[in-house]
């Protein structure tokens, strides 16, 4: 199902918004590089609306005491208990094998953000 959700200029990098997509609430977000991502707007833990959470680089660490924001990974953090979800894959970095949030194709087409399977994943869209 293709659905135009809002204008491409309505969301700045780092912002997100909940949209209704059929029966589902979906959070559509722009990462800090301006790319669009869309995920189911319900935490796998207790169903909290992830659109009320926070967005930012996934924090990595190569040694004890080292906090290194990943250059190319961004996570959506649940507003309730802090579960993280990779915006690209939907996987929870703490348990990627078992916890994967549903993701949706999203793209920008003719100045509109479009959700649905006919779009090109990665947010580049059919420009």
């Amino acid at each position, binding site marked *: 199902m293709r659905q135009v959700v809002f204008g491409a200029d309505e969301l700045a990098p780092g912002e997100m918004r909940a949209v209704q997509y059929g029966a589902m609430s979906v959070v559509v977000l722009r990462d800090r590089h301006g790319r669009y991502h869309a995920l189911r707007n319900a935490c796998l*833990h207790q169903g909290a609306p992830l659109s009320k959470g926070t967005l930012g680089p996934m*924090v*990595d*660490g*190569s*040694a*004890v*005491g*080292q*906090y*290194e924001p990943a250059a190319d990974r961004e996570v959506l*953090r649940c507003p309730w*208990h*802090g*579960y*993280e979800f990779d915006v690209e894959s939907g996987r*929870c*970095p*703490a*348990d990627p094998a078992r*916890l994967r949030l549903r993701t949706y194709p999203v793209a920008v087409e003719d100045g509109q953000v479009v959700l649905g399977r006919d779009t090109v994943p990665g947010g580049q869209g059919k420009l």
Partner: protein
Amino acid sequence: MSQSGSVVGGPTIVDADVHEGLKSIRDLLPHLDPKWHNHITQYGWQGPANPLPYVVLSGEDGTRIDWMLEDKSMRGSDLNLMRKHLFEGEQITVGILNGDFRPSTMQGWHEFAADLAAAYNDWQIAVWLDPEPRLRGAIHVASHDPQIAAREIDRLGQHPQIVQAFLPAINDREYGDPYYLPIFEAAVRNDLAVTLHHCGHTRSALGYPRYQIEWHATAIPQTMMCQLASMICNGVFDRFPELKVVVLESGFTWIPHFMWRMDEHFRSLRVEIPWVKRKPSDILRAQVRVSTQPAETLSKRQFLGLLDQMETEDMLVFSTDYPHWDSDSPSRALPAGLPDGLQQKILSGNAVAAFGPRLLP
């Protein structure tokens, strides 16, 4: 069965927790640097102090009453009686010594503690390992100084009957702290497991409660959970994926609780410890083994349900805790009717996997 009681291809019953003991601190003198002798022979130093206030339900010094020596001397201090009780009586194939002497508990005089540990290790080899090929041993260290401890582990780490570096679980020591990394590095480069065991300096969250029943039921698993959390959260297991840590004498029914609680917090708070790359239960299943004694009495259904909650059959290793008052028997500690393969894993296979080929006869 061979003469030693082993089945061809591997040991039948590995006992991961056997306590040998000194009859007197003077037993160490032949192995101790002479510069310390006066402190023992003239100044009255009698060994690390034990603050534990309780003595309940045992013979002399914690020994099971029917295992007391005829002369009522200290527990586990006679090899021939150990052979009779453990290898003949309980049909143990291989026993791993953990001692009762804890130089790491000394709150000062660390250079003396380090030399005492070395002397104890040499005494253990001379008095127990050399004359009895069915025994395996531990390297005791004074963990205050991890560099010296690592040198001691390197000094004896290739001995064919040494299978572990031993750390007493003390509450004011966080073994996950990077300060202690040299100890883990040394254990790994010598293919040794690291073993944790409580001692008289192990306190509960309330310190020393009024009664032993409180202390024994809570202080030991509490402290083990804290030490494992420390090692997990400080990335010890991520840094040394080949490391095996064996937790002794803390029972085992707390494992699912600890796994679930740690995993839940990791899903919420991973961002605080991003150097940890696997969820805690995965780390525990892969790198931590827990001895069965003192085995909580479970039905077969409860026991299998517990393993189902742990999601592994690989973590439990049998131990007696010989010669202490609450020793378990390999023929009675586990529920009757367990599948043969599972029973054999707990009695020997899991220990062989944890301690490596030096465990085999």
